[in-house]
Structure formats: C-alpha cells, structure tokens
C-alpha cells in the first residue's frame, strides 16, 4: 500500500477524539485496583480489630498519608509517561518527597532510641510477611493500571511499567494499612517501601513486553 493510500485510509471517517480519555482510564484503574486490593486484604488478612480506636490517633493518618502521597506522585508520573514527548519532571519530586520525609523521621526515631530497643523498632512483629503481603495485594491494581496504560501511548516502556507498578503498590499499601498493626515509622520506611518496590520492579520488567504498541 502506498503512503498516500494509508493517509487516505487513516483520515477517512475520523471521529472526534475524547480528550479526557487518559483521566477516565486511570480513574477506572484506580477504582478497580483499589477495590480489588481492599477486598483481597479484607478476605485474606482481615481488617485490624482495633481500627476504630487507631483511626482516632494522628499516627494512623500519618501512616496512611505515606502511601497515599506516593500513589499521588506515581499517578502523576503515569499520566506523564502515558503521553509521548512529555518529561516526568515534577513527578519525580512528588514521588521522592514522601519517601524522604518518612526516612528522615525514621532515622531520627532510630537515633533517639536506645541501641537495645532499635531492632524491635526496625523489625516490628511482621517484617517477614509485610513486603510479600503488599506485593500480593498489589496484583489487582497492577492488572488495572497496566490496562489503563496499554490504551495510551507510552514510549519509555520500562519507566512507564515501573510507574504503573509503584502506583499499584502504593494503592495496595493504603489497603494494607487497614490490616497492618505496625505503628513504627522506621518499620514503614523499610518494609512498606520494600513491599511497594516489588510491584515497581515487576512493572519495570513487564513494561517492555506488555506496553508495546
């Protein structure tokens, strides 16, 4: 087929394009991914029995704010990576800031604790299962966010996959906060972050295969 025939084919009967399709796809992905993670958490791990009490403490909301802020940054990065020729730009900062804040607080808390008690602060009671649990909870979100990204036009597939993974991981961590009894900032800084990095890495590995267009 000659190029001018292809041009004629592509231009024939064009329909107006939905300019808000990107927002719609990611909204659906977040809704379905978030619901999926929450359901999986409620069925698989169970909501913590003292949720009503801890919800009245500031620490609980600070804990929730960490993955929420990271999810916001990752969503921003996703929307930028979904468009050709748009730099990630400020979204890097939006992802780095929550991590930096939690790490700063964690380091200060560890330094302010006696050496004999530091291990308990870092490991909590559930460090062995925490990252794996978050990774499991992130699977519905990973599927949903990859679906959203596949309908768009990412050109840096590895980065786009990683951003999808982080978004799914951060959403899953929000859901996991409703189960997880750990209330130590250093614990979140290590094990929550590690849990979110598993789907991030998975997304980076899958991106070049699943996001090609």
């Amino acid at each position, binding site marked *: *087929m*000659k*190029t*001018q*025939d*292809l*041009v*004629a*084919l*592509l*231009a*024939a*009967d*064009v*329909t*107006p*394009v*939905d*300019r808000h*399709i*990107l927002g719609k796809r990611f909204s659906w992905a977040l809704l379905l991914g978030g619901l999926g993670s929450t359901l999986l958490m409620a069925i698989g791990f169970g909501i913590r029995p003292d949720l009503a009490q801890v919800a009245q403490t500031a620490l609980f909301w600070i804990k929730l704010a960490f993955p929420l802020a990271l999810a916001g940054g990752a969503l921003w990065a996703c929307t930028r990576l*979904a*468009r*050709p*020729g*748009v730099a990630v730009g400020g979204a890097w900062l939006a992802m780095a800031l929550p991590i930096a804040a939690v790490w700063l607080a964690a380091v200060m808390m560890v330094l302010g604790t006696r050496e004999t008690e530091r291990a308990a602060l870092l490991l909590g009671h559930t460090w062995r299962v925490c990252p794996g649990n978050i990774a499991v909870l992130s699977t519905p979100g990973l599927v949903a966010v990859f679906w959203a990204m596949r309908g*768009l*036009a990412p*050109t840096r597939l590895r980065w786009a996959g990683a951003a999808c993974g982080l978004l799914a991981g951060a959403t899953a961590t929000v859901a996991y906060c409703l189960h997880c009894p750990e209330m130590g900032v250093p614990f979140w800084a290590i094990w929550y972050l590690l849990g979110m990095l598993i789907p991030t890495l998975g997304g980076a590995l899958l991106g070049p295969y699943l996001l*090609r*267009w």
Partner: protein
Amino acid sequence: MDSIEERLKALFLAGLDGDAGSYREFLDKLSGHLRGLLRKRLYHLQDHIEDIVQETLLAVHNGRHTYRADQPLTAWVHAIARYKLMDFFRARARNEALNDPLDDYLEIFASSDAEPADAKRDIGKLLELLPERQRLPILHVKLQGLSVTQTAQLTGLSESAVKVGVHRGLKVLAAKIRGAS
C-alpha cells in the same frame, strides 16, 4: 519553523475534533516531514524509509488521543517517530540502535520530502490477515468510504461493532507490522 508547527498543530487539532479534510492534510504534510528527516539521517537505510514513515503515521493515528493541546506538537510527534524507529532497529537487531539518529526533536519539521519511495512491506497485504470483524469495517469505512450505518447493514454487524472494529483493527495492524518487520 514555528509557523510549520503552528499550521500542523491547527490541522491536527481540527482532525481531533473530527475534521477529516484537515486531518488528511496533516497526515500528508507529516509524512513529507518524516520522509525528509529520515532520508537525511538514515542514508544507509533508504529502502526502509517508507516503511518507517507508514509505521509512524499509523502510530500517530493510534495514539492521537494522548496529545495535549498545550504541548508542542513537535515533541509529541518526535517521541512517537523515535519510538517507532527504535522498534524498527530492535527488530533488525542491528548496532544502529546504539546511535540515535533522531537526537534532536527541533529538527523534525525542518525538512520535507514529498516524493515517496515504494514501501517494502505492503500494509494492504497485512490488512488481509485481520479477522473479518476488523477487516470488513476498515475495508468499507476506510477504503471504500461507506458510512458506519451502511457498513453495519452490509456486514450485519452493529454500528458500535463497526466503530470498534475499525479502532481495534488499526491497532492490530500496527502489531502485525511489528511482527512482520
């Protein structure tokens, strides 16, 4: 240069709103610019230039919903052209992937070449490989210029199935090109 960007952008935006004439003019001009740039940069791959131009046009069409009006069209088109070119290189598994002949997006509209060479790969033949529910809508709506309603009556598909068939078919076509190159 800036006036080319502005003119092409106006045509493209009109195309996004459903103006087929503007969209066609945009694609025509774009193929000229792409051809000009690629001929200049890929002197050792002259035989494949028309293939890459066609692939990029198809990608621009399939990705047109991701363009934001406040973004330079140059940067958007360049990123797609570069992506498709890298795809082409990867498929050829050649060392060319290491040097990036399209390293500067400002040059994308700097030249134009209206004389196409023959494409090596025939998109028409690849079109025949599509399943019927995609091939027939593309054939009737896009090649023969029938309306969606007429195509629906002719094929027995619903109108929304015809629209979905065209949309999906062009994406599958892009995937088939990747597989064939």
